[in-house]
């Protein structure tokens, strides 16, 4: 039975929480309400000293599966350090 009212952002939230257990900020927003355009914001000490592109790589890696299977059509990423 299709899970009614399942929030499209929840699976992404779970993946990010696994990848960034120590995140001080972590949010997934369904930007357009269509369930496939997402804004992701992550603040984590894991980003300390990393170039912006490498910070975003970590987020892309955490969401590799939904990116690969088309769950995510468009992804916007905002990363922040925590210092």
């Amino acid at each position, binding site marked *: 039975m299709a899970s009614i009212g399942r929030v499209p952002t929840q699976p992404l939230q779970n993946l990010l929480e696994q990848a960034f257990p120590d995140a001080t900020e972590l949010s997934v927003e369904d930007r357009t309400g269509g369930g496939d355009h997402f804004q992701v914001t992550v603040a984590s000490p894991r980003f300390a000293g990393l170039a*912006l*592109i490498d910070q*975003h*790589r970590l987020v*892309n890696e955490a969401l*590799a599966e939904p*990116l*690969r299977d088309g769950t995510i059509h*468009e*992804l*916007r*990423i*905002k990363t922040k350090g925590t210092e």
Partner: protein
Amino acid sequence: MTELRQRIQDVIEKEPVAVFMKGTPQFVMCGNSDRVLRALREAGAPVTGVDVLADPAIRQELSEISGWPTIPQVFVKGELIGGADITQELAASGELTRVLEEKLGPDYRSSAGERTVSLLTPA
């Protein structure tokens, strides 16, 4: 290496600014590709557009080369700068102009212009 991958590699290495996008600079087909073009235009950058929608294999080969899963992807002198978010953030902070000047020379704007390269017919 497949022929297509070789052609992608050639574009990445030879073009001053290679933008793998959905559509072309004249006919943009996706929001993030549009965001990248706006940021690059604001910085006065030359743009060589490659439409990944022309052949699904392009995106597959490209992501294997760059390790970046999404489109658009911006390369300056062979180096991946990132996608729309990073290109816009760099533009907003002035860092994009610095990277363009460092890699293409302070007068990069003089050679600015936009063109589209097709990977399907040998360049």
